[in-house]
């Protein structure tokens, strides 16, 4: 039986050389393009396997994370067995970024102590009056004073919601002159929080920073990425349940309280910026749960922790979400970002004023002006 075949084009030198582009480069077929893309991605995935596995681990809980972990776990093992993870590690070491692929879920918190027994930092020690003496009139405790020569050391940190208010605080601190913002600005890590130490371990980070920076005051903002059913670093045998359940609230409260104690034990006063009202009602309700935990923990540490309530400030006259507010000069100003969650510059300025008010209530940041005038 005769087999019908298509006539083949003659094998000319040009055909043997293959096709070229207008610039004289070798052109390949679409099939080759696909093969190169697939091979590059497979090999690239093997070379980057530890980083991919960490990214998969850090994803929000759900089927996508499960699939990503199921794929990247074995990939990381194969990469390690074939020593293909070595170039990445060597390059990381050369750049001083070793350990970036490590997944850390340890939550190191100071041992829980009754809140009332912890001494308030920078508060003068209480003196006992001698027996028989007339008790003096109750005095307001003297505030610790700071001046441009001896500035209040302020560290600002948190998730993405701290960025704009943080910069506003830094600007306001510059005008106040008695405050020294530590670092080059707010120490923010986008998409992090207290729920997922594997994404970023704030517990060990804040403890380390408090030790090395020795701040007098710390401004923190957390919670915007913590409204989920899933947490890592949960103690053995503890189940947290769904968001807002008693077990969830208990575990989150433990973390918030631990964070507050970490800061206080380093001798610093803590200002915790609460979560604002958002465009989404559901999200706002979830934020309310988190705010309630933070506020109640702050109340237990009166004099050492202050909670800045941003909710009402950013609500409209009708109590709903407001993207614009009227400022002191009567101008309409944009205070919230288009995403309905983050702040615009004017919104940051509003929060900065609230934070500075809290710092002024706690510390004496202005008497140096009067002394300087004399």
């Amino acid at each position, binding site marked *: 039986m005769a087999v019908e075949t298509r006539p083949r084009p003659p094998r000319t030198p040009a055909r043997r050389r293959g096709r070229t582009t207008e610039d004289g480069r070798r*052109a390949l077929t679409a099939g080759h393009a696909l093969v190169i893309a697939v*091979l590059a991605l497979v090999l*690239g995935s093997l070379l*980057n396997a530890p980083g991919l596995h960490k990214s998969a681990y850090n994803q929000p809980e759900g089927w996508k994370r499960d699939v990503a972990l199921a794929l990247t776990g074995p990939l990381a093992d194969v990469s390690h067995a074939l020593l293909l993870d070595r170039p*990445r590690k060597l390059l990381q070491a050369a*750049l001083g970024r070793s350990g970036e692929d490590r997944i850390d879920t340890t939550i190191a918190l100071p041992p829980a102590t009754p809140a009332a027994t912890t001494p308030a930092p920078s508060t003068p020690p209480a003196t006992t009056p001698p027996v028989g003496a007339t008790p003096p009139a109750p005095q307001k405790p003297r505030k610790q004073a700071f001046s441009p020569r001896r500035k209040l050391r302020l560290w600002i940190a948190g998730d993405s919601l701290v960025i704009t208010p943080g910069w506003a605080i830094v600007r306001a601190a510059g005008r106040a002159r008695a405050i020294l913002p530590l670092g*080059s600005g707010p120490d923010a890590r986008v998409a992090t929080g207290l729920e997922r130490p594997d994404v970023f371990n704030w517990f060990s980070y804040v403890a380390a920073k408090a030790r090395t920076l020795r701040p007098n005051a710390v401004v923190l903002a957390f919670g915007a990425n913590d409204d989920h059913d899933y947490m890592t670093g949960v103690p053995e045998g503890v189940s947290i349940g769904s968001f807002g359940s008693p077990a969830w609230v208990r575990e989150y409260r433990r973390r918030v309280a631990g964070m507050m104690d970490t800061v206080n034990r380093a001798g610093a006063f803590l200002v915790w910026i609460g979560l604002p009202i958002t465009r989404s009602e559901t999200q706002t309700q979830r934020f309310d749960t988190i705010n309630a935990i933070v506020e109640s923990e702050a109340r237990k540490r009166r004099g050492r922790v202050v909670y800045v309530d941003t909710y009402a400030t950013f609500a409209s006259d009708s109590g709903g979400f407001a993207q614009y507010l009227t400022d002191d000069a009567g101008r309409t*100003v944009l205070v919230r970002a288009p995403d309905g969650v983050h702040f615009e510059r004017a919104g940051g300025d509003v929060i900065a004023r609230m934070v500075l008010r809290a710092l002024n209530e706690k510390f004496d940041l202005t008497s140096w002006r009067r002394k300087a005038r004399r």
Partner: protein
Amino acid sequence: MLFPTATFALFFLVVLPLSWLTMPRPHRWRPFIVAASYVFYSWWDWRFVFLLAGSTLWNQLLAVAIHRSAVPARRRLLLVVALAGNVGVLGYFKYYDFFVSSTDNLLAVVGLDLPVGLRSLVLPVGVSFYTFMAISYVVDAYRGDFEPVTLEKFAAYLSFFPHLVAGPIVRPGELIPQLETPRDPRSVDTSRAFYLIATGLFKKVVIANYLAGAIVDDVFGAPGQHSSLELLVAIYAYAVQIYADFSGYTDMAIGIALLLGFRFPQNFDSPYTAVSIQDFWRRWHMTLSRWLRDYVYIPLGGNRKGELLTYRNLLLTMLIGGLWHGAGWTFVVWGGLHGVYLAAGRLRRGRKEAPPTGLALWRRRLVTFHLVCLAWVFFRADSFGTAKDVLVGLFTRWDAASPLVGTGVVLAIAAGIASQYLPARLPYRLMERFSRLPVPAQAAVLALVLMVTSVMGPEGVAPFIYFRF
């Protein structure tokens, strides 16, 4: 769906073979690519797919009506209606709150209140880009430069995902003819495509993201807290950041289109080697400058109506260009500054001068770069207060410490600028050598680039600056 993400990689690995498989039958390929592009677009917000579809229908309907009409007045009316629709959509989503709050604040000065509420609208990603492309299509149909095509072809042109969210702004005459005939699967310019994707990725992830985190965001966040040296270096760093960010994105877009068999126009040509502002605009966001020239400057009269009106036209064109970038007065000032620069350049060109060489050439490059940097201050600043703090601080705090000016920052800025002075032949030689490598070796080189980019880049995926526009 951002290009440098695993999600896009998976999306593209599905689209690439299916696109080539359906390519021989364009009537199958076009619906496929429209569907793929709509999936790509819906990744941000599925609701805006309806806006894209609505824009497609509106412009197609009016372009065809303009083409069919032989009555000049009617054609003109239809064009005005089409433009009003496009500008209306852009104005509503992008500028409504800006104009209402600006008017409200202006009236507040004389004690009046504007009885119009603000809308707090979310800006659909890419709307500025595809609206400009849609305007090109309708205006070209009106001018008779381009005959409207079928709805299927126009939908593929407008939504083609490589250019959809941040350009380049491709003209109908450049892309639609390519969409009409199947691309040749036996001849794909893979070396150029992969070179552009790899360098674009490196520019975005390593250079732009690093500079943003290491100095730019810190300094522009609180300029009053930084030394004059930090301010100066942050301005240079921003010049490099925005170039690496935007040109990196368009390099990737052009490379991805090439892998699918399509050619996009060049969008950047070493802009910081420009010897004048006019030269800069021939090298920076070239597809936007072409668009502004052909659809704003020339219709305004261009340089055909005398010197004074030419200056007016230059200024108006650049003000519109500034406003296109963002709904804010700082963007208007940025555009206005470039308008003034261009007008001053034109005034200067009136005096006959020989083309600069040697030291004069470098002096002009230096002056042009610094004029561009001065305008970038307004582009980056979130308010006039910040811009003022940056500019005043440049002269007042030279004695303060500059901890942010580290070796990494200086090297990244130097690399970003020096790369533009490399011989033009060098990339072609690299591509040529890459193209001669066997297929597995090409894949290995790309995998290494992926690894280096992943390690050197900051954690996370930062959004592209131009996605906001």
